[in-house]
């Protein structure tokens, strides 16, 4: 009973994470819509404003989704290992400070390097922004990174304490046959271990390149090798952005079994898939370098081959597992299980254009077209983010007696269609060779942008409905009249 009460009080911190994350995602969608309207020639927007919107949209989406993803991970992982709530709270605090600095830097000081802050752009803006804006943004990102780094250190510490090492957290002793499959670490632990490994790497690389940029902004006479800077920047950005889906997928592993009363078994193939994706994720950021002919050829070829394979092992094993666990299970479909299932669809569909793009031949044509946002809006917007929304409905159901209504179900359908619309608009633009990150489009390119904007409005409305439901849940549980022993209630 004591345990349950403690967990319930931790839930309020988790809910805060999710409420902030989902709200920011919704607000960032508005900036996305404004960008599309500007590109579509409907809205008069100064290019400077467009690039500020681009910067805040990219940074905000990745930051907010990562926060919410961390909450999903933390919620389930605490059942297996001993996590520090203090550090989890600290991460939220640092993230909020970082976000505020980034917002001030972008909107008050017109900083607009896009979220990839590629060296030497932060210092060389041709006076589009000044030192203060760049410093606010870069230091803000650093502060954000400090919070996340602390959290992953704590997660890693807890996993090592319980399982002995990160290798064992990935189940290497089961893979090697030293331990029986039945004793394999739970799927949640495996995924959390993977995310810890790749994100500690990403954040350490990110800290190096952020401080480098800060030095360069303060004193431009200190210059650095731009190619190494690009490598480190994408090692940070690519990995960190990718990690979101690997935190979100924990919701799939935990929620579907509860709905079907079938366990999600981490068998040997599952473990191998996760280990493969761990190592691929660490090296395939090189696909961002395919245009850099100075990179060693072997690295680029590796980047290409592994890009085909990057998320694929985990995706295949998870999609297959999800189908198997649902198949003839008599699962009851509601908002949570529905969203979780859709997220698997979004993830799968979103990966296909990525694989096409990762081919060097295609990449020379498609890279830097809107094809690229086309693929990642699909797997982020309809994959990772939907896992988070699904978890939010799961939490509100498990932790309160709040019911969903017709609006929620309509929002689910609208959201799915609208993200397909947004991503489809991008993909069509890409096929028309529309460059990405261009504030203004030729008339030929405008159609898909306007279509995307209209779809985007629908998405933003749907997210608003999701958020309203979640806020209502937070209000209900704050009233404290949820005294029932909720965990004994069966979902299935």
């Amino acid at each position: 009973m004591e345990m349950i009460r403690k967990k319930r009080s931790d839930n309020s911190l988790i809910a805060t994470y999710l409420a902030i994350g989902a709200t920011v995602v919704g607000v960032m969608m508005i900036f996305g819509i404004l960008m599309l309207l500007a590109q579509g020639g409907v809205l008069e927007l100064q290019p400077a404003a467009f690039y500020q919107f681009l910067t805040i949209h990219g940074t905000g989406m990745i930051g907010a989704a990562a926060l919410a993803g961390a909450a999903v991970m933390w919620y389930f992982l605490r059942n297996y290992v001993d996590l520090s709530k203090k550090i989890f709270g600290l991460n939220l605090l640092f993230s909020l400070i970082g976000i505020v600095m980034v917002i001030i830097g972008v909107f008050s000081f017109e900083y607009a390097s896009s979220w990839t802050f590629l060296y030497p752009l932060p210092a060389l803006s041709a006076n589009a922004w000044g030192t203060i804006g760049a410093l606010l943004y870069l230091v803000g990102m650093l502060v954000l990174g400090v919070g996340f780094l602390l959290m992953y250190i704590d997660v890693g510490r807890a996993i090592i304490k319980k399982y002995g090492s990160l290798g064992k957290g990935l189940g290497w002793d089961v893979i090697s046959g030293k331990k029986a499959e039945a004793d394999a670490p739970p799927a949640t632990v495996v995924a959390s271990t993977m995310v810890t490994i790749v994100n500690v790497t990403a954040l350490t690389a990110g800290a190096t390149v952020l401080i480098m940029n800060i030095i360069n902004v303060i004193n431009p006479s200190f210059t650095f090798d731009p190619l190494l800077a690009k490598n480190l920047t994408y090692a940070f950005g690519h990995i960190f952005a990718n990690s979101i889906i690997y935190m979100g997928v924990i919701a799939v592993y935990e929620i579907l079994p509860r709905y079907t009363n079938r366990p999600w078994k981490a068998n040997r193939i599952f473990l191998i898939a996760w280990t493969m994706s761990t190592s691929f994720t660490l090296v395939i950021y090189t696909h961002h370098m395919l245009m850099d002919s100075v990179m060693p050829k072997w690295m680029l070829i590796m980047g290409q081959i592994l890009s085909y394979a990057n998320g694929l092992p985990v995706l295949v094993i998870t999609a297959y597992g999800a189908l198997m666990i649902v198949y003839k299970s008599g699962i009851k479909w509601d908002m949570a299980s529905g969203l979780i299932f859709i997220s698997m669809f979004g993830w799968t569909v979103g990966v296909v254009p990525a694989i096409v793009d990762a081919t060097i031949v295609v990449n020379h044509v498609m890279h830097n077209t809107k094809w690229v946002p086309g693929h990642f809006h699909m797997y982020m917007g309809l994959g990772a983010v939907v896992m988070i929304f699904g978890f939010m409905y799961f939490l509100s159901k498990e932790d309160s007696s709040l019911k969903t209504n017709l609006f929620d179900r309509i929002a689910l359908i609208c959201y799915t269609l609208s993200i397909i619309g947004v991503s489809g608009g991008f993909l069509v633009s890409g096929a028309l060779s529309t460059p990405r990150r261009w504030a203004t489009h030729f008339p030929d390119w405008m159609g898909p942008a306007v279509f995307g904007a209209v779809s985007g409005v629908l998405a933003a409305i749907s997210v608003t409905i999701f958020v309203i439901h979640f806020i209502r849940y937070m209000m209900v549980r704050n009233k404290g009249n949820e005294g029932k022993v909720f965990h004994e209630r069966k979902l299935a």
Partner: protein
Amino acid sequence: MRPGILGILLYGILLLPPIIGLLEGQMILHMLVQLPLLIFSGWLCGAAILRRMPNYRAKWNGNGIPGILVIVFITTYWMLPRAMDESLVFWQVELFKFIGLPFAGLCLRDSWPKIKLVGKSFLFLNYLSMFALMAWLYIDAPVQICNNYAAQEQQLLGWGFLFITATMIIYLVQMVFTDQSEST
């Protein structure tokens, strides 16, 4: 020999003018030998000194974090290339070096056992990325950064930092991938 005496001895040796001349004559020796040895001397003397002032320790450095902050500030300062330069030119900076760094070592002695594993790991990773940055800065800089040292020495120092960074990475990887369940 008791560590305290060893520390004083080490400090004394580091103070000898010929040793100062030798270590400060080469950039890499200055940064990666003299500065760390000064910290080490403070750390060696630490136990004996700290034993005599338990109240101060509890009052000022109860949880170890103030001490760690002192260390971070002092060591970060000495990572600035101009700090090394100035210590050769201004006696005040040289004095600060010979007092500040042993003091950092003393703080290290007091703070390290007090901070939690998460804090230790965080510090470790921070120094890891700082050292990587130093390696990058010194190897890559197209200009001579310090007035008193040639560009070539600067590069050598960069490689020294790279070596340290690589060692830290190897240490980290073997720590997290070998079984820790017996030892802790």
